[in-house]
C-alpha cells in the first residue's frame, strides 16, 4: 500500500513538471555551451574561438559547399563510406579467424604469437606505412578502373587498410573470448541431443558467442571511426571529415573546424547506439541469465 502511495505521488509530480533525472544529462553540456560562448565573446577572434552561431550555421546548412571540398554532408558520407568498407573487411576477416582460434587450440597456438606481436601497435602507427605502400590508389583503381564517378573514387586503399587495423583486434579478441567461453555443459547437452558438428557450430557455439562478438563489433567500429579521422588528416587525402578539419584549420575557418568535431562526435555516438540496439536484441539472455 505504502509503495503504491509513493508511486502515485511520484507520478503526479512528474506530470506537473519534467523530473530532474530526465534533464540531468543536459545540465553540464548546457553549462559548457554557455561558457564557450562567453569565452568566444571575450576573446573576440573567430579565427581562434568561433561563436556558436557561426558553428550552428555550418551545421544547419549541411549541403552548402565548404571551402571547395564539397558539402559537410558529402565529406561525412565519404568518411562513413570508408569506415564501412574497412570495417566490413575487418568483420569478414576477424570473425571467422576468431572462431577458428577460439575453437582450435592448434590454430590458436599458430596465430596467437603474431597477434600478440601486432597488438601493441596503434593503428595510427600504420598510417605512414600505408601511405607509402598504397599511395593514393583508390579501390576502383585496384581493379583497374581509373574513375567511376561515384563515391568509390574517394575511397583510398590505404585508408581502408588503416580502418581495418582499427577494427581488427577488438573484433578478433572478443570473438576468441566468446567462442572459447562457450560452456562445456551446452556443448555436451547438444551432443547428447544428437547435434552434428556443423549443427553444433551454428546452433550452439555461434548463438552462445554472439554477445561477445557483438561487443567486439561495437568497440571495433568505434575505433575504426576514430582512426579514419586521423588517416584523413595526412597529406594526400582530398576529402572526408578529417580532411575538412585539417583544411579548415589551414584556412583559419574555425567555425567549420568546430562543426566537423561536433559531427564526428555525433556520428560516433550514432554508430555506437545503432550497434548497441542490435547487440541488446541478441544478448538479452546474457544479461538476464542467473
Amino acid at each position, binding site marked *: 500500500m505504502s509503495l503504491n502511495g509513493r508511486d502515485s505521488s511520484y507520478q503526479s509530480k512528474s506530470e506537473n513538471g519534467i523530473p530532474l533525472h530526465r534533464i540531468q544529462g543536459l545540465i553540464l553540456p548546457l553549462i559548457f555551451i554557455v561558457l564557450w560562448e562567453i569565452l568566444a565573446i571575450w576573446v573576440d577572434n573567430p579565427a581562434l574561438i568561433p561563436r556558436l552561431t557561426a558553428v550552428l550555421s555550418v551545421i544547419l546548412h549541411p549541403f552548402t559547399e565548404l571551402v571547395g571540398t564539397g558539402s559537410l554532408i558529402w565529406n561525412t558520407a565519404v568518411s562513413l563510406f570508408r569506415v564501412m568498407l574497412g570495417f566490413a573487411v575487418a568483420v569478414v576477416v576477424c570473425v571467422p579467424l576468431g572462431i577458428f582460434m577460439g575453437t582450435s587450440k592448434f590454430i590458436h597456438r599458430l596465430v596467437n604469437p603474431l597477434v600478440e606481436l601486432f597488438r601493441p601497435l596503434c593503428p595510427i602507427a600504420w598510417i605512414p606505412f600505408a601511405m607509402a605502400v598504397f599511395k593514393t590508389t583508390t579501390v576502383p583503381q585496384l581493379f583497374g578502373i581509373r574513375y567511376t564517378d561515384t563515391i568509390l573514387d574517394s575511397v583510398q586503399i590505404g585508408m581502408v587498410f588503416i580502418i581495418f587495423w582499427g577494427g581488427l583486434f577488438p573484433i578478433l579478441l572478443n570473438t576468441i573470448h566468446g567462442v572459447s567461453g562457450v560452456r562445456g555443459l551446452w556443448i*555436451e547437452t547438444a*551432443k*547428447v541431443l544428437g547435434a552434428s558438428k556443423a549443427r553444433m557450430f551454428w*546452433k550452439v557455439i555461434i548463438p552462445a558467442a554472439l554477445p561477445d562478438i557483438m561487443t567486439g563489433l561495437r568497440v571495433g567500429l568505434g575505433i575504426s571511426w576514430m582512426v579514419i579521422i586521423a588517416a584523413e588528416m595526412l597529406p594526400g587525402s582530398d576529402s572526408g571529415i578529417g580532411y575538412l578539419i585539417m583544411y579548415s584549420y589551414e584556412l583559419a575557418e574555425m567555425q567549420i573546424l568546430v562543426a566537423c568535431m561536433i559531427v564526428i562526435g555525433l556520428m560516433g555516438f550514432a554508430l555506437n547506439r545503432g550497434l548497441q540496439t542490435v547487440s541488446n536484441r541478441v544478448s538479452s539472455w546474457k544479461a*538476464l*541469465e542467473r
Partner: protein
Amino acid sequence: MRNLSIKGIQKQFFTPPDRQIIALDQIDLDVRGGEFISLIGPTGCGKTTLLRIIAGLEIPNSGEILLDGMPVDDLHRISTLVFQQYSLFPWCSVIENVMFPMEMKGIPKDERQNRAEEYIALVGLSGAEKAQPYELSGGMQQRVAIARALAHDPEVLLMDEPFGALDERTRHRLQNALLDIWKKKRKTIIFVTHNIDEAIYLADRIIVMTTEPGRIQEDVLVDLKRPRNRLDASFTELHLKVRNSLERTV
C-alpha cells in the same frame, strides 16, 4: 523395446603425478527394455561416469554397450542425458529448446512445433512455450529439460541427479511427473541419485555401487506396487536395506 546390456565396462583416469584411478571396474549390467533403474552410491563411485559412457560422452577403456545383443555405433542416437545442472540453452525460448533435438534430426518445422507442444504439455508446462529459461524456476527448467530429452525420442533416458538441486516439495512433484511420463512413454530409464528415498520411490531396481574401484555391490529389487507410499513398512524396510548396503561401501 530393446534390452540394454552393459558388458565389462572398465574406465581409468590418470591424475598427475602418475596416479591411476579405476573409476569403473568390470561393470556388467542388464537392463530390460522399459525398466526403471536407479544407480546409487557414494561420491566417486563412478555412477556419473557410467552414465556418461552410456550417453556416449566418455569412451571406456574396455567393454561395450549392447542393445538386444548388438553393439551400438551411435550412442547419441539411442540415448540422451538429463544433467543435474540447468542445461537449457538460454538464448532459446522453452519451445525452441524442446524443438532443438528434432531440428538436429531434420524434422520439418510444423511437425517440430506440434510435437514440442505435446511434450511441453506432458511435463505440465502448457502456456510457457514462449518463456525464456531465465524466467523459470529450477523445477520448471528441469521439466523443460525432460521434455527436450523426450523430444529426442531416445530408447534409453539417462538422468544424472536431475532433481538434486531442487527443494523436497518440488522434487516429489517432479518424481510423480516423471513416473507419469515413464508410464505413458515406456522408456528405459537409468536414474543416478544419492537419495535412497528417491531411488526406492522411482525405480524397479536399485544398483548400489562401491567406490575405488567403482563396482556394483548389490542389485536390489524394489518389489513395491506403484504409487508407492513412503510411510509404508515395506518402504522403510527397503530403505534400511539400501542404507546398510551403502554403509558397507565406505
